[in-house]
């Protein structure tokens, strides 16, 4: 399966990602969704902000890429998409970029239901700048700026974006490749605002500060936390604890059917 996305990778590019980074997995999963849809990648535009996740499309993807200012990827993408609606436009950026500094653009694009597919790569931390707390960091987690554990509640990004009016909203982890690829395909095919939160753990900045010494341990930790939506149904808040619920939370196409 890995071979079929090779043609979509920019030739000669050395990946800047750390060994074991989950974003490396996501590079291929996004491209696999595009390959399965048989989209001509020259018709696509990939827009990203600042941070590790922003480097997923730029420079890895052999397509038009726009690597923008911190937090502003969705606003840049809005201008390009509105002027040329033929561009199949995808935003790939991190939780800090899209939900903290760029939070305003995120909710307004969802409100407008702009035809973009936004992949929010959630590593729950500012990875590139040294592992500071983000608005998606769970409570109690140690980061370089929460040395006694995070005391702030994180956003439930899917609820936030669904409430703002997005057409399609889903959350999966890189450890759930099959439903994630299907979800990215649905996001691209949805006309309107699609938001896919991808749990993509950072073992360097998140894992090592929280007694997860290797990439494998970090991935396993999150695999154990992720629960499919139907599995979570009927569980009490105590039973749910700090589980991460994955699945589709808003699907405009289903509602239309």
């Amino acid at each position: 399966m890995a071979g079929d996305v090779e043609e979509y990778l920019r030739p000669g590019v050395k990946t800047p990602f750390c060994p074991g980074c989950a974003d490396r997995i996501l590079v291929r999963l996004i491209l696999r969704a595009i390959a399965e849809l048989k989209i001509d990648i020259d018709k696509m535009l990939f827009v990203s902000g600042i941070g590790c996740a922003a480097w997923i499309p730029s420079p890895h993807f052999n397509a038009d890429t726009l690597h923008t200012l911190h937090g502003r990827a969705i606003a840049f993408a809005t201008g390009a998409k509105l002027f040329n609606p033929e561009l199949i436009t995808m935003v790939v950026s991190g939780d800090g970029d899209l939900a903290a500094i760029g939070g305003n653009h995120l909710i307004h694009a969802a409100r407008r239901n702009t035809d973009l597919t936004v992949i929010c790569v959630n590593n729950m931390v500012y990875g590139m700048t040294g592992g500071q707390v983000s608005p998606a960091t769970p409570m109690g987690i140690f980061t370089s700026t929460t040395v006694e554990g995070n005391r702030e509640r994180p956003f439930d990004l899917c609820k936030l974006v669904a409430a703002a009016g997005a057409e399609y909203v889903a959350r999966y982890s890189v450890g759930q490749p099959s439903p994630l690829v299907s979800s990215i395909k649905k996001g691209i095919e949805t006309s309107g605002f699609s938001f896919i939160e991808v749990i993509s753990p950072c073992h360097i900045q998140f894992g090592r500060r929280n007694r997860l010494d290797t990439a494998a341990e970090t991935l396993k930790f999150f695999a154990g936390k992720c629960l499919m939506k139907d599995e979570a149904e009927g569980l009490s808040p105590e039973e749910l604890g700090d589980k991460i619920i994955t699945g589709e939370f808003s699907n405009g196409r289903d509602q239309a059917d």
Partner: protein
Amino acid sequence: MAWKEVRSALPPGNYYYSGNEAAAEGAIAAGCRYYGGYPITPSSEIMEWIAVRFREVGGVFIQMEDEIASLSSVIGASWAGAKAMTATSGPGFSLMQEGIGYAAMTETPIVIVDIQRAGPATGQATRVGGGDIMQAKWGSQGDYPVIAISPWSVQEMYDQTINAFNLAERYRVPVILLAEQAVGHLRERMDVREKIAIFNRRKEKGAAPFGGGDDGVPPMPAFGEGEKLLVTGSSHDDYGLRKVADPLVQARLTARLHNKIVNNREEIIEYEDYYAEDADVIVIAYGFTARSSLFAVERLRREGKKVGMIKLKTIWPFADTLTRDVGSRAKKIFVPEMNRGQIAGEIMKYTCCDIIPYNQTDGEIIHPTTIMGELRRLL
């Protein structure tokens, strides 16, 4: 070259427009078909005019959630192939600074109209100011090129907005129309010619989009043309590939960005000379203040006084050669400004001539009689 003559969007003739309306029409005439904006006094009429007129000429208008988003969307649209603009005033212009630096670094042609009001901060939103001169050049981090133009009339709001788009497309650079509230809200006659000359960005399939040519300006493809573009605000090589620790790449890029404007400045810089040839005292003025100055200079000339005026139409890049020349001829240079001496300081960089600044920051225009009184004391 990519110059061509097109028919004006407005039927030729005389119009009685405000400066803000004229800027909107100038943009449409130049081929602007994307506008992202956010309301702010005293520039909002530009956005409102565009919102109506784009429905007639087929442009894309969106009111964004803030000025940061407005400018970001404008840059995105420009790379999608649009001639794109936004308009704002002081507080919004401050929010746009990071985006202006990004546009300069990525060599994105965009036009920003800044209808200056009395600052600092919220200041006096409906009153006139001219305090954004240095911000237009130095507002974002690092050294980067911009072109800034200062119009003094409704006619120039129209003509110079067209010029702003031509310069942006010609040099792949952000161009700022640094107008003042007094010009934006001025209402007077404006002439529209049938044909106007416009420049459309050069395209060359497969060419390095950040490589520069003989004049330092590379061709610019658009998204969707199969060029597999890498556009980034990080330091990059000729093909846009990020090179964030290579001293040679950084040195070459920053030098080229600077030189493509500075080396072409004789072609970019425009000014007007009024009686300066044999004058002992020369006024250097721009924008609305140049109107008041010209009135004063013409009165004093009728009295036989040797006084003249240079009207700066281009603010950035600064007219250094002109300033040197004027400084070598004049006994004194009088510089009236609606700020605390931003251009006066710039003039001092290029001449040892006696510079007399006059600074008024009370939210009012500088009256012709004020300038006349000041000049009488110098003559």
